[in-house]
């Protein structure tokens, strides 16, 4: 495999869904103390990434059993999931939302538009990749990325906090 997956799968072939959930819950509890709350913000997307993000909560992917939940207020959030090519209008809003989050906080840039600009890179409204405004912990390429990739990206971001102090 060329690209990163959850580091554990290198050594063990996980066919047991249940144990993955268990390890996920343990890891989340150790770092965050509770289930992971994700706040999604759309800084200028075409809504394809939003479709994929929304489908995370449908029965096929069902990310709730992993302990991942959407939340409305950034004050309650641990992860900021950013989708879309950042426009000038949403730059300040993105920064305000990020500042409103309490630490520890993670940012996951979802979709090629958030990472690089994608098709909209030449547009006059495009204000740059998301990591020019706020620090990003994980990148999920794809146009749009699959829900599996989004889960993977969130796990990657959580992995980065492993071993660090609360804040």
């Amino acid at each position, binding site marked *: 495999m060329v690209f990163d*997956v959850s580091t554990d799968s290198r050594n063990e072939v996980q066919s047991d869904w249940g144990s993955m959930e268990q390890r996920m819950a343990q890891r989340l509890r150790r770092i965050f103390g509770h289930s992971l709350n994700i706040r999604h913000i759309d800084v200028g997307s075409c809504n394809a990434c939003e479709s994929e993000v929304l489908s995370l909560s449908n029965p096929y992917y069902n990310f709730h059993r992993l302990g991942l939940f959407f939340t409305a207020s950034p004050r309650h959030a641990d992860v900021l999931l950013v989708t879309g090519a950042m426009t000038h209008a949403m730059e300040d809003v993105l920064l305000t939302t990020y500042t409103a989050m309490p630490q520890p906080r993670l940012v996951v840039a979802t979709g090629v538009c958030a990472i690089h600009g994608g098709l909209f890179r030449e547009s006059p409204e495009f204000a740059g990749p998301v990591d020019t405004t706020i620090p990003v912990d994980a*990148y999920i390429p794809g146009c749009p990325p699959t829900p*599996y990739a989004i889960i993977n990206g969130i796990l990657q971001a959580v992995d980065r906090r492993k071993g660090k102090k609360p804040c």
Partner: protein
Amino acid sequence: MLADWLRSGLSSRRVTTTYPYGKEANPIHRNWRTVPVIVSACKSTMPCRCGDFCPTQAITCPDGFAVQIDVGSCIGCGRCVNLCPQVFAWSGDVTVAASGRRRLISVADGGEMARGI
């Protein structure tokens, strides 16, 4: 595609899919086109043309015959796979994500396989 989901769900009496680890990749995902990989180095003697047809300039030729693909800019149009099937192929990986921006860029120069990570 919905029929596939229905068939899979009805046969296993569980709709929720498993996370596709390694060998446990779901046959449904075989047809999904996510991002391309570089399968072999570019053996063309002509100056590099791949970068011209990538709409987001995800594919570049840094020096000479080396080919670099930045998956973070790839929108999955598939032109590279269609025009240069010797160099590019669909990765078949539906779980692409990385925790560093540089990890999304992989380079293949003469003689060596695609090197990423």
